[in-house]
């Protein structure tokens, strides 16, 4: 069985975000990026599902972070890493177009990606990709089991409710959480992969896929809009006393 995992490089929200000079994007200078955390769960789920003789292929777009993401995926147990070159757009429509070309060049039984990312303004990659490739898709998945040519998946609803679905393969899953916390790859192992493994490349042909909308403004929401800011422990204790909980 062959699994594909789609990876995306996104701003680390631990950092302070600022609006760029054009006022329509995040200022990426000095900004730290990292692997989309949901993609990390998608990778973990694929690695947990893969048995002997199975193949886990990690794919991402070329650019900052591509080598690190792919080598880390291989260090964790992925079989191969493919870097997509020539993709024109980083919005969901563009990503779905690029990934569908690369995935269409081979056969995959299950395609996993993170349920969402911090900047997917024009939709979630999993279901957009699935629609483009004519495959079934379930999003917000937190459990996956394989039974022959089908997958049993648990989809999370609000209020802690979970629905179980049976899905014919090949299929796309938007992973909310893997059954286990994502494994850690030691830095030394990642470095070893970087030195010894040749990453593959796939050239995407530009089709001009676009989100069909444009960003006209970006702003940080006013901070502390609702909260009365307290400046010391005394004030906090006073509030707690007022609420009668101390």
């Amino acid at each position, binding site marked *: 069985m062959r699994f594909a995992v789609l990876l995306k490089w996104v701003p680390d929200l631990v950092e302070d975000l600022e609006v760029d000079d054009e006022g329509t994007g995040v200022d990426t200078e000095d900004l730290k990026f990292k692997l989309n955390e949901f993609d990390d769960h998608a990778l973990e789920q694929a690695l947990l599902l893969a048995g002997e003789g199975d193949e886990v292929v990690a794919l991402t777009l070329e650019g900052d972070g591509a080598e690190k993401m792919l080598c880390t995926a291989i260090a964790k147990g992925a079989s191969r890493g493919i870097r997509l070159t020539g993709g024109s757009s980083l919005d969901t429509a563009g990503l779905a177009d690029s990934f569908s070309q690369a995935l269409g060049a081979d056969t995959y039984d299950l395609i996993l990606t993170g349920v969402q990312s911090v900047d997917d303004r024009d939709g*979630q990659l*999993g*279901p957009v990709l699935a*629609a483009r490739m004519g495959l079934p898709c379930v999003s917000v998945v937190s459990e996956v089991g394989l039974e022959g040519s089908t997958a049993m998946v648990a989809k999370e609803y609000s209020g*802690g*409710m979970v*629905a179980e679905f049976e899905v014919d393969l090949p299929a796309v899953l938007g992973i909310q*959480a893997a059954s286990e916390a994502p494994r850690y790859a030691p830095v030394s192992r990642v470095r070893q992969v970087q030195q010894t493994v040749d990453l593959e490349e796939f050239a995407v042909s530009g089709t001009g896929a676009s989100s069909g*909308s444009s960003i006209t403004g970006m702003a940080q929401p006013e901070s502390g809009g609702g909260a009365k800011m307290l400046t010391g422990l005394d004030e906090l204790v006073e509030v707690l006393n007022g609420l009668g909980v101390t």
Partner: protein
Amino acid sequence: MAGVLVVCEHLSGGFADITFEMLGLASSLQVGEVSAVAFGSMADRSGELGAASTVISAGCSDDFNPEEYAAAAKSAVETTSPDLVLVASTSMGYDIANPLAATLGIPLIAYCTGIEPEEGAFVCTSSLYGGKMGVTSTVPGPAVVMMLSGAHNADDGRIEGSPGVSDLGAVDTPGRVRFKQLIEPDQGDVDITQSGVLVAIGRGIGGKDDIEVAEELADLLDADMACSRPLVDAGWMPKSRQVGKSGMRVKPSLYIALGISGAPEHIEGMKDSATIIAINSDENAPIFDVADYGMAEDLFDVCEELIEELE
């Protein structure tokens, strides 16, 4: 026909609040007739959807099915030709809105909190980057917009009435996704939806061993422990303690958020708490927008001092 089509969401035999939030918003936009597509037997309750002038009855199973519901929504759009389609930014909505826009070849805007019509287009504000940025997009109609829960008042759309009902008929799908069963949440040792005081921890807690300080504080305040999603995914806290979109929706008299940044997914589950106190070292954290009281300080310093004071 122009206008707005609202894709209704239901769970456990009732329309979800977001359905009424979207209906209220749709009416306020004044861009033509408001219609609503309701799935399965929920269309029999069209009287609850009085904010819409037409209810489209989609002949689906009552249990959500990604393939079937997306196909029915598409058929409803083709029948009504709306300028704007509103879908909930929820687990079900993800599997309706995305295939809907992709197969119709029309734009989609996600995580939307507000819409203004402007000369045949829609100016939409989305909450991105974990709620740290408000992004404005201009999109021409027809477009699909996914609305975040809680951005509008559900009561504005909760209007009894007798809208006309039009039958969409059965929906034909390949049947590649089959619903099996709905599993109720495991309440665990404590049902946090019933707790009076909650001490909730987020990623800012740092490591698993650091949870103790929050537990100590919770003990002193006679509170129960809760948490945001990442701590459950990391295996540090049980799922039964998770607050937010895919966790529990809580309304305690006091919610103390420690090291929680306030992503929209978390806020959805706790914004109805009577009083919210947020402690987070990042003064720009969106949690301070919903909190009643905030402290932009290191949570460990505050907790340790407070524990000493309470003891």
